[in-house]
């Protein structure tokens, strides 16, 4: 005989405001099997939980239903409550009367009726619940970090510091990411390379960190604590173990017309290259699209000049398979393509550049050795116009609806640096809003205006018009003056919106980690679990989760590492007991379930059965590996004989729910 307790939560006024909680408790109290029914302002509070515990003990409850917020919120809480009172934690069901009832309906009568139906449904289900016990699975004490920018570097260093092995996968030939391309950092103006490169060296020297540069993740299998990942090491055509990074090959290579991607194509390099002086690993790479030897077999200069004999034109991509307990995504960002913004003449004039291109133009290791010159004629620019929000906060097809967050600050930085180094250059910044939340951020922006005399104009540029004399005529609105203004500029700098790296979407599919509509990874909880993906064992570091500046990225990267360490520190993980199981007496060994299982959790065994006539017979039956099964239930539907069922979501339970709703 079931003895079910029902607990209706007011959630302050969140539920009680639109649902008559007393009426719900009263109606549900009359349901068959229910022996106790109560309501309380906050069921999740200590007092509320005590109410549940006392009722379980006092009435000897065999199952409880909590009518409250979404199970995604507090199912775990109430399971613990039940367990503390001696009830199996899987004898708990939640009726979601907040997110799926009180918050979406305004009419009290309608919402109350619905809440009763939802409660009734949960009661029908819990009456068929069975006690479940979680099994244990081991944790592989090794982490994978995907992306070698500042986020990935920081996460890898922190995990390694705690004593765990870390593999750092980077798709480019060197780690460093976007920060390596940046000249100075706000709000302190220290040099990005000076603070980044020591960390890169730390990564290379740390025994616990293994860097897979020029590599990509190919395939991911498994689950939290025990992932199996295939990493593709792309052919560099240079043996990493032999190359000393001397750079002679890059000097002697005759193919000098290769676009220098590290400088965003603003200058050229040789076909065999080391992206920048402080690259880690400092190993040459051959660009197969430009190398004459690889393209048509004519050249071989690099091979002749390499004293270490590291050049290997026959090198192939290599697949490495490795086990991990946790995976960190740190895939970062890129500025958007500006093809949809031809009104700013970006494709037409070389003197219209993005902010990241300006970083390279101003960088001492950049194409002009740190002197700011116009790309078109290499002259010194006297008037520079900055345009903010190019593609950010833009709901059209070519833009991004979100604020890219970093542009206001880096533009203030650029403006300030230019005014500092070239006081004869006038700098105009068109802004919609200046957004500077952050420590010392607004002070920084104000310094640009008050100390450096940067002209901030509230308004937007409508069009940039290249002139026959090479100038750029900028037409924009000055909303505070209520004027349309024309500025004859030498250069225009566009603060292009940032977007998640294109590799993130296929990676998310491999990891079965969810993403939002902008291709940023979603966090397990937007406030309380910001560095974890909803998929167990997947963690998020840096801009792949949302726009961030460097201090925020580093903070999140360390937070992410802490979560990974917390996981790796465990020897065993309790696994989800809501897994499939097969009734051997019904199973006919058809293999339908095995074919649909995405995890390979089902195998077939030959088993001896006693027949009614007292003989024995060997039959082939399905057997589920509970540690590998993730509980999707695909097999339960595929099974033609009805042998396969899913604990926690059994056929009978779901049927009972359907019945209760349709009653």
């Amino acid at each position: 005989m079931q003895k079910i307790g029902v607990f209706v939560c007011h959630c302050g006024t969140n539920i009680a405001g639109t649902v008559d909680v007393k009426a719900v408790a009263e109606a549900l109290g009359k349901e068959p099997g229910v022996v106790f029914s109560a309501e309380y302002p906050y069921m999740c509070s200590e007092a509320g939980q005590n109410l549940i515990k006392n009722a379980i003990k006092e009435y000897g409850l065999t199952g409880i239903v909590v009518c409250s917020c979404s199970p995604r919120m507090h199912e775990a809480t109430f399971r613990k409550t039940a367990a503390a009172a001696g009830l199996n934690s899987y004898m708990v069901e939640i009726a979601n009367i907040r997110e799926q009832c009180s918050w979406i309906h305004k009419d009290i009568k309608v919402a109350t009726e619905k809440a009763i139906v939802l409660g009734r449904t949960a009661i029908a289900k819990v009456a068929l619940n069975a006690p479940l016990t979680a099994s244990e699975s081991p944790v592989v004490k090794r982490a994978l970090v995907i992306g070698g920018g500042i986020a990935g570097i920081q996460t890898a260093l922190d995990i390694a510091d705690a004593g765990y092995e870390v593999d750092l996968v980077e798709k480019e030939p060197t780690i460093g990411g976007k920060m390596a391309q940046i000249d100075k950092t706000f709000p302190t103006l220290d040099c990005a390379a000076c603070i980044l490169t020591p960390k890169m060296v730390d990564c290379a020297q740390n025994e616990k960190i293994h860097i897979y540069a020029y590599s990509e993740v190919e395939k991911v299998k498994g689950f939290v604590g025990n992932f199996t990942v295939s990493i593709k090491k792309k052919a560099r055509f240079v043996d990493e173990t032999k190359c000393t990074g001397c750079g002679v090959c890059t000097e002697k290579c005759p193919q000098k017309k290769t676009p220098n991607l590290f400088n965003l194509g603003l200058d050229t390099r040789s076909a065999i290259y080391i992206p920048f002086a402080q690259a880690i690993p400092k190993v040459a790479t051959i660009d197969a699209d430009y190398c004459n030897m690889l393209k048509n077999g004519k050249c071989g200069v690099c091979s002749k000049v390499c004293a270490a004999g590291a050049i290997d034109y026959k090198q192939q991509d290599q697949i490495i398979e490795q086990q991990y307990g946790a995976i960190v995504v740190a895939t970062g960002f890129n500025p958007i393509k500006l093809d949809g913004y031809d009104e700013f003449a970006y494709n037409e004039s070389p003197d219209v550049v993005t902010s990241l291109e300006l970083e390279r133009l101003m960088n001492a290791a950049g194409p002009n050795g740190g002197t700011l010159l116009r790309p078109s004629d290499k002259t010194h620019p006297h008037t520079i116009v900055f345009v903010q929000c190019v593609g950010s906060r833009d709901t059209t097809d070519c833009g991004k609806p979100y604020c890219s967050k970093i542009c206001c600050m880096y533009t203030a930085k650029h403006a300030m640096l230019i005014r500092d180094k070239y006081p004869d250059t006038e700098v105009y910044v068109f802004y919609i809003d200046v957004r500077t939340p952050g420590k010392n951020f607004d002070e920084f922006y104000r310094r640009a205006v008050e100390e450096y005399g940067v002209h901030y104009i509230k308004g937007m540029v409508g069009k940039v018009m290249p002139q026959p004399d090479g100038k750029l005529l900028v037409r924009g609105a000055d909303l505070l003056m209520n004027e349309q203004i024309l500025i004859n500029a030498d250069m225009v700098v566009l603060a292009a919106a940032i977007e998640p790296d294109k590799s993130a979407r296929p990676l998310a599919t491999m990891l079965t980690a969810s993403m939002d509509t902008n291709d940023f990874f979603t966090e397990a909880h937007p406030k309380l679990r910001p560095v974890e993906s909803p998929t167990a064992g997947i963690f998020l570091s840096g801009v792949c989760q949302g726009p961030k500046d460097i201090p925020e990225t580093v903070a999140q990267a360390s937070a992410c590492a802490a979560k990974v360490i917390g996981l790796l520190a465990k020897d065993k993980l309790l696994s989800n007991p809501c897994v499939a199981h097969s009734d051997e007496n019904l199973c006919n060994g058809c293999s339908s379930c095995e074919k649909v299982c995405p995890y390979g959790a089902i195998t077939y065994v030959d088993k001896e059965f006693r027949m009614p006539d007292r003989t024995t017979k060997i039959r082939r039956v399905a057997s589920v590996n509970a540690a590998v099964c993730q509980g999707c239930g695909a097999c339960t539907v595929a099974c033609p004989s009805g042998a396969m069922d899913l604990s926690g979501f059994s056929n009978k339970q779901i049927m009972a729910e359907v019945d209760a709703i349709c009653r």
Partner: protein
Amino acid sequence: MTFSYYPGCTLKTKAKELDGYARRSAQALGITLAELPEWQCCGGVYTTAKDEIATKLSSVRALEAAKKEGNALVTLCSACHNVIKQTKYALDTDDDMNFKVSNYMGIDAREACDTNVVHYLEMLRDVVGFDELKKKVVNPLTGRKIAAYYGCLLLRPGKTMQFDNPENPKIIEDFIRAIGATPVIYPMRNECCGAYVTLEDGEQAKKNSSAVWESAAGFGADCIITACPLCRYNLIKAESEIPVIYFTELLAEALGVK
């Protein structure tokens, strides 16, 4: 290949050369332009208001007639093209508009107007092909530096017109290359000439139009070509120092049918 053809009123009066050269060139290219019977004036400008129905009916009739002929509808004047194409877009996307027009006309408007509206330039690009056109040129205009003037009507609203990239179009430049001349790229090529405001405020239109031809001339163009009679009128009114002619005139010249 046969198309229904909507010339529009100005092409019958002040812009006869735009029409005449277009017909002769089409013939030379093996395309038949069958003028719609009893077409009515498009109204010159599209009224964006959702509660304006009557002003859109002449375009609906043109579309319906073309559909009956079973042809795509070719337009030449930028204004006619803009008005008819926007009307078609409104019928396709605005249920209320479609409902009202259908009731008034006693037809299922969306269905009855389901025909492609193609500008003459689009026809050259997509049906003839600029490569093919190049082969048919008998009198290439080598050495001529020509500025394409798009104005606003062909390009905008970009989502509706689907003509070319509204901020950096290239169809007329490609056309110029096909007839052997050199295109001149200048930033004002997609800015407005002042349009009908010339009746309201002649100075304003003159200012707008001057900015256009001055920009083209500044980049070294020796003439400007357009598809719009009003653009041409305004530029000439603004005392353009370089000739402003219809693109069909150059086409006819290049094909040797001028």
